[in-house]
């Protein structure tokens, strides 16, 4: 039984799915803010959100599959949350059974497994009921498959088989097993034979049992352990244990299988619960969300309206400024302009939106469409590190080299003030060579830069596929945090910032405004 709410044809997993540059993405795009918003205090959901967002889907069909499931969840959030609750409860109660005991013997494993099975049986029945009542309302392929599976696999007949096993496993007729002579002639390869529990009245049962024994006495040899022989009973118990060891193991394993089903359910549904949580937080802020339109990789198609930085929004009380980008047919976007003008915020928004779209989530924008990319990479300026002033460019180049090792055609690269740690001429030349190579390799580049030499250089090329955005700055020096199309200008108005900070110290620091 597979859950398959995340993928049409395989399981979702927390491990091993993050891209190699996950740490950089988390740091540069401040993803932890996003993860925490989706999870609240739930550490498990945090992990789910993290793996879900970072494990970028690379084809439109997979994205569409999740978008549909998410649409169902957004439509019936209570039902989705209840199914999730069933899985969480089953896992927690099972954990409770084992929590206090060490599995010292097959016998205790057997008893606790029977207990766990009883509990799972109850969860199955709840799941069946929910499915019978609401299954037909869900229209996504994912949920359609899921409910069909519950109906089919957990039908009444099957639930009855499980109940029967729970009875037989009490071994009312003793245990019968076969063995070979093993090492040292001790019995080995014990195989237990399940004696059916017949639904008989008590006296019939006795008759049946006596008959069985009688039959055995006919061919076999038997003896009885003396009631005073304590060691003998211990030995008998040990032998009985050898007999049940495999069935205990099998039952323990079966119980684990069922547990793993509930775990898979919690995991896969958890991703959508995380989305619901985020949606509710954004709705409370009156921020819009939209179902993004993932487009084929061919033909640059980025276009968005009201795109905002979801992380900035989550950290701010007010609504944040949304931006419009018309990036159709553009493979290089150069973002220039005033400091603190919203350049980095836009860059981050673009990266976040791309990641969120490609994990099947909604996107923080009024409208968003983009090509499905093969991966998002970031190369952001890092905070000054007093200890390694001279090594700054080395460090940047080394990080870039790592990116170049990993990046493939069809990826997106976000550059934020890259190579500003050396003089402008050198930095520009390094950057130019890298960017040109990447563009030719069919990699889309977004570049926030102060380096006029670099930006101006691209602008002079007058390539149709380049887009130049500039942070808007009003004549009085006010920033609107809007990015408009515009030619790079020779200064970045750092002076303004300098003046403002030095004239009104403290007020800036208090505001929830981002650096750069």
């Amino acid at each position, binding site marked *: 039984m597979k859950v398959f709410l995340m993928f049409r044809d395989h399981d979702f997993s927390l491990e091993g799915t993050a891209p190699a540059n996950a740490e950089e993405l988390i740091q540069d795009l401040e993803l932890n803010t996003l993860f925490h918003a989706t999870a609240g205090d739930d550490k498990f959901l945090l992990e789910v959100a993290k793996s879900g967002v970072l494990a970028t889907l690379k084809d439109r069909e997979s994205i569409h599959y999740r978008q549909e499931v998410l649409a169902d969840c957004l439509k019936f959030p209570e039902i989705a949350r209840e199914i999730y609750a069933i899985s969480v409860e089953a896992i927690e109660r099972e954990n409770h059974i084992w929590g206090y005991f060490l599995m010292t013997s097959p016998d205790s494993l057997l008893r606790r497994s029977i207990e766990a099975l009883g509990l799972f049986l109850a969860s199955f029945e709840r799941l069946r009921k929910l499915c019978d009542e609401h299954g037909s309302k869900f229209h996504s392929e994912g949920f359609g498959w899921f409910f069909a599976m519950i109906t089919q696999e957990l039908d009444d007949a099957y639930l009855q088989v499980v109940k029967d096993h729970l009875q037989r496993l009490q071994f009312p007729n003793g245990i019968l097993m076969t063995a070979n002579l093993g090492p040292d*002639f001790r019995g080995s390869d014990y195989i237990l034979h399940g004696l059916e529990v017949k639904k008989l009245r008590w006296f019939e049962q006795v008759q049946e049992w006596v008959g069985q024994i009688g039959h055995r006495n006919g061919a076999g040899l038997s003896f009885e352990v003396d009631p005073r022989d304590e060691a003998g009973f211990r030995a008998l118990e040990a032998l009985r244990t050898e007999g049940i060891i495999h069935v205990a193991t099998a039952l323990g394993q079966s*119980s684990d299988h069922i547990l793993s089903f509930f775990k898979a359910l919690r995991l896969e549904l958890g991703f959508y619960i995380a989305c619901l949580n985020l949606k509710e937080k954004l709705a409370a802020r009156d921020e819009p969300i939209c179902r993004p339109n993932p487009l084929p990789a061919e033909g640059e198609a980025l276009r968005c309206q009201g795109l905002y930085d979801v992380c900035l929004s989550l950290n701010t009380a007010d609504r944040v400024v949304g931006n419009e980008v018309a990036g159709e047919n553009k493979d290089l976007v150069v973002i220039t302009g005033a400091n603190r003008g919203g350049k980095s915020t836009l860059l981050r928004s673009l990266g976040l939106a791309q990641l969120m779209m490609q994990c099947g989530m909604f996107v923080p924008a009024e409208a968003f469409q983009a090509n499905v990319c093969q991966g998002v990479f970031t190369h952001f300026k890092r905070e000054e590190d007093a200890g390694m002033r001279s090594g700054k460019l080395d460090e940047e180049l080394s990080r870039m080299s790592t990116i170049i090792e990993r990046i493939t055609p069809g990826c997106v690269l976000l550059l934020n003030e890259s190579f500003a740690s050396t003089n402008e001429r050198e930095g520009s030349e390094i950057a130019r060579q890298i960017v040109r190579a990447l563009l030719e390799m069919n990699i889309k580049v977004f570049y926030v830069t102060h380096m006029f030499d670099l930006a101006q250089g691209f602008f002079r090329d007058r390539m149709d596929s380049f887009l130049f955005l500039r942070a808007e700055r009003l004549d009085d020096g006010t920033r609107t945090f809007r990015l408009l199309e515009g030619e790079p200008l020779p200064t970045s108005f750092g002076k303004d910032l300098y003046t403002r900070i030095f004239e009104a110290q403290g007020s800036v620091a208090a505001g929830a405004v981002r650096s750069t």
Partner: protein
Amino acid sequence: MPSQSADNSTRASEQWSKDKLDSDLGLNQDPDEIFRSILFDEYATWTEGDGADAPVFFGDLNLDQIVHSLTTGRDEYNLRPLFYLPLKRPETVRYRQDVFRDLENSELLQSVRSFAAGMRTMRAHLALSEKRYYKRQKQACFLDAVETYCNATAGLTQGLIVALPNSSGFQGLRDFLIGYSGSEGFTTLTRETETVRLGLQKVKYSVHIQSARVTVDRNDVDGDYSQEVLQTFEKFRQADPRSHRFKVPASIEMNHIEEHILDLVAKLHSEIFAHLDEYCRRFCGYCDEVIARFDREVQFYLAYLEQMERVKKAGLSFCYPQVTSQSKEVQALATYDLALANQMIGARTVVVTNDFYLQEPERIIVVSGPNQGGKTTFARTFGQLHYLGALGCLVPGVSAKLFLFESIFTHFEKEEDLQNLRGKLEDELIRINDILERATENSILVMNESFLSTTLSDALFLSREVMKRITGLNMLCVTVTFLDELAAFNETTVSMISTVNPKDPQQRTFKVIRKPADGLAYAAAIAEKYHLTYDAVKARVGAKHGEGSQS
């Protein structure tokens, strides 16, 4: 109930400790008289009790460490005495070297190793058989033991036939084994073992437990309930589940319930169990004396080869030394202290190798130079090398020519005790005197930092006197000293000095090179580091000059 027959069968395992081999075990026909031992050729003299104690110099040369590592994990073979007996005849040294050469053949080595593993298993079975209380269990262990023995012996025979050994040792063993394997005794043993085993494998029974009643039956019942349970719940499986494995203690004595059940099983299958009884009585003394002895003695080689493998991984070499009692012109290339190399395995440190040679009339190597420079290690290496060579083993190095000594003496500084200077010096002199009294021209002497506990002039005087006597004895000697003056004592002395590389403190042992002592070795090492030695400066200036002259 302990049975008589199973009792006897364990005697084979005790044979080595007694070393009194009961040759009349009823199985072996006339053994090939020529082959006795894989360690000693027909002329080697070796009497019982030899090698009971480690030679006195073992600690000084760190041979104790080497032997410790060689014998670790091989206690059951009691190998130490074999390593305490240096050989006296070059022919026996070659006998062993030839065996080592045969063991370079990986197929031959593998069949010897498999044989040894088999014999180990066999002894484990015998020991269990001894320990068991219940008769049937003793029999089970005994059967296991004999089965293992037959397989091991047959495997070794086949392996040796295929491997075409060149050494007279392995050829002798092969011929012996061919005779033994074809003997009536061994073929019967093998056949009967198989028959009994097959019969027992067919035994199957069922047990029904209902409260206090246990019923044993021949009948087979079909079906496996645990599989049924698994199948019912298999569909929930997502990935590999945690495992619920219980370790059933493997070798617990049977309890009386199990005994009772087995008795009933034996009644149900009376024919095969009667056969087993007869088998155990008939073959109680099955193990051959020559084979048992080979099993122990070949461990000498296997142990040494294993040590070599470990050390070789660190990039170090071993070679077959030319061992002679005719010439004292000894030499070795790229040799090293094996005990130290053993310690350094996996320590990421480099073991530095050294060379030495002596030409007529040279006899004495005087090692001087800075401390921590590997002087003592060098001296030890010299002693170790000769000792290992005399065991017939390969020795550390790329090539070596060694003298087959009659005796080795060492004189190493004991713990320093400032409270008792006079006593210490006196003690030292007594020890040296004792050594020189006993030493002959065929001895080797290794001296380390003698006379530290007295004044310089005293030390010089005493050392000169000792050197005179050593020279007079015409024996091989390595002496480590802080007295430069001894380095050019006479035409029989050779000066070697240690060097230090302060640039790389990871290097724990350093080069000891043949060079006159000048007391400036450390200064030279420092200069080397900065490429400012006379030679280096000359070469660097010369390179520029070369460029200049070309133009």
